[in-house]
């Protein structure tokens, strides 16, 4: 196990030294995805705002609950779309990078960081839209926003191991691409992205409490919507991130040289 961890740290440190490679490739990826379009990556912002607008229009509760709903959905969708994109793109990561993996000696973590950075850049456009919606919806700007920012950093911290775990899952179990895709689509309804947990519906209550993604959403959302520090959500998210890191390091250390034979 120690040898596996050493191997993983070696792979990660080599990838960090090669940061210019994944930074350049991630930028190329974003550019390629929007080449020849008029709005370019601004489409990411348009899509996000359109989604939030639709959800607010359709699901906004009447009366007193209406006030904070736009902020609730804006942050919920921001975090959920980010996590969903990271996970769904990760399952086929090694298959997509096949020619690189079979033709270069780049450490595997380079591909992990390439996808991480790409997802972060894409989410960056949505964040701009999110901040504008929050300000327009009347969310008071104050100190609690810093907790929210800390929550975002915690999600960033959890991103590379999440990608690693899902990438290995996809390499060993190709069907997982479809399983993960379907689960994520269904998962949106079992995660408090656009519905609020009132504690009355038992299904909602279970979905809220036992779904780890709830806490990833709440560490960013609760400081802004409720103006409080969500200690419990932070604790759960930190624990989940550390467990994911541990699994990712073991997989990377143990199987990184096997990936080339699996894809």
């Amino acid at each position, binding site marked *: 196990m120690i040898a596996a961890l050493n191997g993983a740290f070696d792979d990660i440190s080599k990838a960090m030294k*090669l940061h*210019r*490679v994944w930074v*350049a*490739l991630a930028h*190329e990826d974003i*550019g*390629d995805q929007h*080449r020849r379009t008029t709005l370019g990556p601004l489409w990411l912002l348009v899509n996000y705002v359109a989604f939030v607008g639709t959800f607010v229009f359709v699901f906004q509760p009447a009366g007193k609950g209406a006030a904070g709903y736009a902020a609730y959905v804006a942050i919920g969708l921001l975090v959920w779309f980010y996590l969903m994109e990271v996970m769904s793109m990760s399952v086929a990561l090694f298959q997509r990078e096949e*020619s*690189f*993996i*079979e*033709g*270069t*000696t*780049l450490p595997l973590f380079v591909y992990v960081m390439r996808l991480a950075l790409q997802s972060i850049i894409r989410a960056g456009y949505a964040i701009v839209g999110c901040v504008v919606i929050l300000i327009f919806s009347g969310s008071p700007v104050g100190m609690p926003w810093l907790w929210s920012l800390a929550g975002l950093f915690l999600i960033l911290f959890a991103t590379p191991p999440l990608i690693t775990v899902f990438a290995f899952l996809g390499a*060993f*179990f*190709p*069907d997982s691409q479809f399983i993960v895709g379907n689960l994520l689509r269904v998962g949106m309804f079992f995660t408090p992205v656009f519905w609020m947990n009132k504690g009355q519906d038992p299904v909602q209550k279970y979905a809220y409490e036992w779904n780890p993604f709830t806490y990833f959403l709440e560490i960013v959302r609760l400081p802004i919507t409720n103006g409080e520090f969500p200690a419990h959500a932070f604790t759960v998210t930190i624990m989940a991130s550390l467990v994911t890191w541990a699994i990712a390091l073991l997989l990377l250390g143990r199987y990184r*040289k096997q990936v*080339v*034979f*699996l*894809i």
Partner: protein
Amino acid sequence: MVSIKLDNVSLVYKLHDKLTLSAPDRRVGGPGGRIEGSGRKQFVQALDGVSFELRAGDRLGLVGPNGAGKTTLLKVLYGIYEPSGGSVAIEGKVDALFNINIGFRREATGRRNIVLRGLISGWTETEIEEKMEDIIAFSELGDFIDLPFKAYSQGMAARLAFSAATALDPEILLMDEWIGAGDASFQEKAKRRMDELAEKAGIIVLASHSEALIQSVCTKKLTLKSGRIESLTTEPVKRAGKVAKL
């Protein structure tokens, strides 16, 4: 001192029965070689007891039928495949030309692609800048260098790849099926550069099916069959050296 030493290197990999809900896929991916075992415990013996030594100035040609292990051997030398047995000792900076399109982006210009290729090979930005004009001049792409890579013909792409891969004077250069990079005059130029590389105390390992190419470039020839060394000519190929049957 640039050198390569392989001692009894073998590469065996299991044909992973991937966990899948569909009918088992029996297509063999990865390197070639002999398939052994049966049922769920199949494995491929891609290399078996390969030993040889190369010193500065050696140009080794790898020959053999499809699936003999040529590419696998190159990938072991490059460090992509970890051998299952034996030892590989390499002194010197290794660069490889396996897939000419590696690191090349269709939408990016030739110039940008040189930067990307350089970064992937671990060059610093200063090294890339210093070599940029040399690479462009050697590739003879002229104004095409500022056009997207997708506008290049296959020959042009191969010229750019070859120019970039050999620009930083790799001490050891590994090439797979590198033939037909550009027209006859470029091939001649490429051959001269390979001569220079080898003279600068480099090692070249070239896998090819072209006997003529091997004869004109290489000084040693290693014939592989089913992952094993069948023969290794120890004298310059051009002089029709003695073939040592192993």
